C-alpha cells in the first residue's frame, strides 16, 4: 500500500490570481522521510504552496514530481497524500473509528484489515478506547490526534500538515510537538509542515524553508538557518537579531552572542560602548536594551544565573562580541 517513493520535486512552481502572485517560482527538493517545514508570516504563500502540493489549487506554472513522476495533473483524491487540516476537518457525523477508517473504506479494503489498521492507528496516537466517540466529544488535542491518525491510516508517502497546532494552547502545543516528532520517526513518512511559529519550526524540522512574498527566502537545517541567516528577514523571523552596518554591509548579531560588562572592563575583538536603557528579568535570561550612539538600540541576552550583578538603567556598559558572532547578510540596507 505504501508508495515506494516519498520524495517531492517542486519545479519552478508559481500561482497567480490575476496580477497577484501568491507563489513565485518556487523550486525545492524534499527528501523521502524528511520533516520539512514551510515557515513564514501570513500571506507568504506557504499555505497556497501546500494546497498546490495537495492538489486543491491548480498550478499556474511549473511542475510537481513525486518520485520522479509528474503529479501536476493528478486530482487530489488520486494523489494519495495524507493531510491534517487547520481545524482538523473531522467528519462530525462519524465516530472516531469511522473517521480513521474512511480512507480505507473508500478504497474498499476488507473489514478485518480496516479494523486492525484503525486499532494500530489509535495505538499510535494513544487514543485506545475512544473509537466510539464522536469528534465533538473530544478535546482539541484529541481531535488533532484523530486527524493525524486518519491522515496516516492509508500509509501515504507524504503527509501535509497545515498549521495543525494552531488551535491548541501553548502548553499542549509543546507536548504535541514532541509527539508529532516521535510519530514522524516511527512511520518514516515525508512530512511537509506549514506554520508561522518559529519555535515549532526549530524544534521539529529536519529542514526549514523560510518564505516571504511567495518566494523562498532561505532553506536549511534549523541550526544552519539560525547561525547563518542570509537575509535580514531570515535573521529576524527566526529568532531575534540586532543589525549593524559595517563597511557598506549589513551584519546580523544575535542578542545572546553579545557579552555585556561594566564600562572599561569589556575585552573582545569587537567593542561598542553605551548606556543601559532597560533591563527585564525573564527567569532564565536578563534582556538588556542598550543605547549605543549612532545606531539603533542593541538587545543583549545574558544568562541570569551567570550575571554577577544586574546593571541598572543608566549604567555605562561595554558590549563585546567575537568576529564569528556577526553574520554578514546579503542585504545592503534595511
Amino acid at each position, binding site marked *: 500500500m505504501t508508495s515506494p517513493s516519498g520524495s517531492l520535486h517542486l519545479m519552478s512552481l508559481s500561482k497567480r490570481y490575476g496580477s497577484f502572485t501568491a507563489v513565485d517560482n518556487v523550486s525545492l527538493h524534499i527528501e523521502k522521510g524528511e520533516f520539512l517545514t514551510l515557515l513564514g508570516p501570513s500571506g507568504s504563500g506557504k499555505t497556497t504552496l501546500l494546497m498546490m502540493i495537495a492538489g486543491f489549487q491548480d498550478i499556474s506554472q511549473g511542475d510537481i514530481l513525486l518520485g520522479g513522476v509528474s503529479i501536476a495533473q493528478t486530482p*487530489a483524491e488520486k494523489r494519495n497524500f495524507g493531510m491534517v487540516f487547520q481545524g482538523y476537518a473531522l467528519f*462530525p457525523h462519524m465516530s472516531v473509528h469511522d473517521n480513521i477508517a474512511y480512507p480505507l473504506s473508500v478504497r474498499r479494503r476488507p473489514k478485518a484489515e480496516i479494523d486492525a489498521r484503525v486499532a494500530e492507528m489509535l495505538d499510535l496516537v494513544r487514543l485506545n478506547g475512544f473509537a466510539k466517540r464522536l469528534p465533538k466529544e473530544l478535546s482539541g488535542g484529541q481531535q488533532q490526534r484523530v486527524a493525524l491518525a486518519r491522515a496516516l491510516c492509508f500509509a501515504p508517502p507524504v503527509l501535509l500538515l497545515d498549521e495543525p497546532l494552531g488551535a491548541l494552547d501553548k502548553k499542549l502545543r509543546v507536548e504535541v510537538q514532541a509527539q508529532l516528532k516521535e510519530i514522524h520517526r516511527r512511520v518514516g513518512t515525508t512530512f511537509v509542515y506549514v506554520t508561522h511559529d518559529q519555535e515549532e519550526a526549530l524544534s521539529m524540522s529536519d529542514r526549514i524553508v523560510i518564505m516571504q512574498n511567495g518566494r523562498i527566502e532561505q532553506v536549511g537545517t534549523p541550526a544552519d538557518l539560525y547561525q547563518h541567516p542570509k537575509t535580514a528577514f531570515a535573521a529576524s523571523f527566526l529568532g531575534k537579531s540586532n543589525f549593524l552596518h559595517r563597511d557598506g554591509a549589513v551584519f546580523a548579531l544575535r542578542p545572546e552572542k553579545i557579552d555585556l560588562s561594566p564600562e572599561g572592563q569589556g575585552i573582545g575583538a569587537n567593542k561598542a560602548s553605551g548606556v543601559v536603557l532597560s533591563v527585564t528579568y525573564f527567569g532564565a535570561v536578563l534582556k538588556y536594551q542598550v543605547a549605543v550612539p549612532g545606531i539603533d538600540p542593541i538587545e543583549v541576552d545574558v544568562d541570569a544565573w551567570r550575571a554577577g550583578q544586574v546593571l541598572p538603567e543608566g549604567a555605562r556598559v561595554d558590549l563585546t562580541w567575537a568576529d564569528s558572532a556577526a553574520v554578514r547578510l546579503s542585504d545592503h540596507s534595511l
Partner: protein
Amino acid sequence: MRVSLPAKLNTGFAWVLLVLLIAPALVAIPVSLTPKTFLSFPTDELSLQYYRELFSSPEWLSSFAQSTVIGAVSTLLATTIGTLCAIGLWRVSSPAGEVVRSVLLLPLVVPPIIAAMAFSRLFVPLGLIDSYTGLILAHTVLSAPLVLITVSASLAGFDARLEQASRNLGASNWVTLRRVIVPGIRPGILAGAVFAFISSWDEIVVTLFLSKFSVYTLPRRMWNGIRENTDPTVAAAAVVLMAITLLAFAIWALAARRTRPAA
C-alpha cells in the same frame, strides 16, 4: 423582571397577528362537526358524520390517494433536483452561478396563475394534460426552488474543508457527496422535502388548469365541493389536510432537532 411597555405591545401585537393568521383555518374544525347538511357552525350537538362520509366515499378516498402519490413522487424529484442544484451552485460559487440561481428561483416569484397558463400551453401538445406525469412534473418545478433555498442555507454553514478532507483521503466526488456532504446538510434536505410535499399537497391553481376527469386531487375535490354544493365534508377534508400538514412539520422539527450539527 419588569417588562417595558413597548415590549408588551410588541408581544400583544404578535399574538393578535398569530390569531388572525390561524383563526380562519381553525374555523374548519367546528364546521366539520356540524350535524346539518350545509356548511354551518354546530349549534346544539356535534356530529362526526362528515368524517364518516369522508373516509367511506370512494371519491374522497381516491383523491387522498392521488394527492399522496403526486405529492410523494414530486417531493422525491424536487428534493433530488433541488439538492443537486444547490450543491452544484455551492461548488461553482461564481457570479454566473448566482444568475443561474435567480433563474431557478423564478417559479417562486411567478404568480401561480401565470405558471398555470404556461404549463397548460406547454402540456397540451405534449399530451400531458389530465395525467399524473403532467401534474407531478408541474409540482416538481414549483417545489424544487423551495429545496434549493433550504439546502443552500444548510450549505452556507457547511465547512468546505470537509469536502477537501474527503477527497484528500481518496474519495471520489460521488462518494464524498454521499458520505460527507449529504449527511452534513441533512436538516436542509429534510426541510426542503417537507416544504415540497406541503406545496404539492395543497396546490390548487396549476392543478385546476392541468386536470380534467381522470386526475382529481384533494384540493380540487374540495374546490368543487364548495362551488357546487355546500357539503360539510369539505370542512372535514380541510381538517384532515391541516392535520397531515402539521404532522409533516412535526416530523421535520423532530428530525432537525435530532440531527442538529455539533456546536
